[in-house]
């Protein structure tokens, strides 16, 4: 663990975390740490429990077992008021931005400032323009969300996420559905904003190549467990078959191409009830 030295106090500390939806085990004993100032990626295939893990960190879901501490406080033991106090120190970027569609870009970014501060309107205006400038969209302040492209909407949502200068920023699939230019822009913004704010970031994604360029540490989740972890260099050099298949996008491997079925020959030559 080259980048995650134990002397750095973790912003998020997860030990043996379990979670299930009805009868389905989603997380089965997750151990994970996010130290101060680092950008950590959580990767894995669709439906492996990445987003669930992030919702557990944000307190939107409650774990069935194990320990989950954020800023040193156990999320399972705090009431809603305390949880909201913690959330004021967090920011979360949703997969498709989740901008408020009845508000302009400016009002979207100003929303957390209006809700949580008593700042004069002139100061709020300056802060909003600064946040929009940081994501390159100061000129789009007057537009409505319906007038933005997918990449622009994601950047506005990012400006809103960092409006209150959070200490922990979470990104849910920030690269999904973006063209290569927007993807690169969002990737660089995640890194730059994290460093500029002195925050810690968690990026839930399955975009391997972009993530390897910007993050400090990577956790791989499969079937509810951490199956591999390491720095980007360690991950690139990994000989673990699962990591290798995922990083290099190989069609077949530990994750099979074929859905389980009876033998092909038997299915073709046998009876019609395949």
């Amino acid at each position, binding site marked *: 663990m080259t980048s995650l030295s134990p002397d750095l106090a973790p912003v998020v500390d997860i030990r043996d975390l379990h979670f299930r939806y009805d009868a389905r085990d989603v997380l089965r004993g997750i151990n994970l740490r996010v130290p101060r100032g680092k950008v950590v990626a959580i990767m894995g295939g669709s439906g492996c429990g990445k987003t669930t893990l992030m919702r557990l960190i944000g307190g939107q879901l409650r774990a069935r077992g194990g320990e989950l501490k954020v800023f040193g406080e156990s999320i399972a033991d705090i009431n809603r008021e305390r949880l909201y106090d913690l959330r004021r120190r967090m920011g979360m970027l949703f997969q*498709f931005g989740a901008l408020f*569609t009845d508000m302009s870009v400016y009002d979207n970014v100003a*929303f957390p400032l209006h809700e*949580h501060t008593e700042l004069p309107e002139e100061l709020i205006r300056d802060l909003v323009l600064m946040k929009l400038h940081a994501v390159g969209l100061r000129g789009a302040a007057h537009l409505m969300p319906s007038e933005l492209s997918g990449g622009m909407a994601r950047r506005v949502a990012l400006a809103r996420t960092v409006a209150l200068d959070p200490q922990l920023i979470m990104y849910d699939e920030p690269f999904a559905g973006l063209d290569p230019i927007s993807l690169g822009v969002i990737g660089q913004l995640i890194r730059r904003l994290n460093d500029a704010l002195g925050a810690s970031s968690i990026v839930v994604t399955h975009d391997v190549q972009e993530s390897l360029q910007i993050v400090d540490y990577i956790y791989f989740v499969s079937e509810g467990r951490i199956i591999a972890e390491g720095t980007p260099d360690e991950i690139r050099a990994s000989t673990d078959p699962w990591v290798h298949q995922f990083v290099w996008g190989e069609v077949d491997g530990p994750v099979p191409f074929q859905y389980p079925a009876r033998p092909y020959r038997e299915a073709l030559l046998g009876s019609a009830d395949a």
Partner: protein
Amino acid sequence: MPEILLRPFVRLGHSVVSAIWRLGFASRFLAAIVLMSGTTFRRPYLLMREIYFSGVLSLIIILVSGLFVGMVLALHGYDTLSRYGSEEWLGVLVALSLTRELGPVLAGLLFASRAGSAITAEIGLMKATEQLSAMDMMAVNPVARVVAPRFWGGVISMPLLAAMFSAMGVLGGYLVGVVQIGVDPGSFWSQMQSQVDFERDVLGGVVKSVVFGIAVALIAVFEGYDSDATAEGVSRATTRTVVTSALVILGLDFVLTAFMF
């Protein structure tokens, strides 16, 4: 007993238990809305915006419907009353029908169709597009910020719309009864003034419209908040708002009428 014979009873039992569950959930939701209404009244622009969307934008359909209902009442009323030589009672008939019954009930049904469905669709879509989750993650309670203003906007708008429906209905009755048919205007207004009791008839109608307003607004926000976060889920929730509101309004109308008059 074979399973196939038991199946209808199992389904019926499941439906009844689900309905009771939802009723309990809706009651707790109402309590939560009331407890979290501070933001709505501390920031009047939130409430004014919802009164505009629920009330002002419903005005056209309410006023036009009220006018036509009053006109039809006058036509039917005149036809019946003239057989007994009591045409001067036309104003009373129109006013009592509207203030006691048709004003609150029809305005409630129209309000559920126009504003109730819009509120459900808006909240449902906010849920489907994760806007409510985003708000919650920003430490802003969506019940306080999104649901409560829409609920109170509906509760305040509904009695005002019902009153305007009744007023337009009386005007419609006047236009048909007095202007078109030729009933004596003095009798039309004076009989109405003497026979319509403010407390019993007008306030009774106001009480009904307030109760219907609470019911429709609660159903609308609850269905939106409880909808499945998919396009189909929002569509079903919107339909449920209109159907449930109509049934609840008619059911409550019977109960209130039995107690009041």
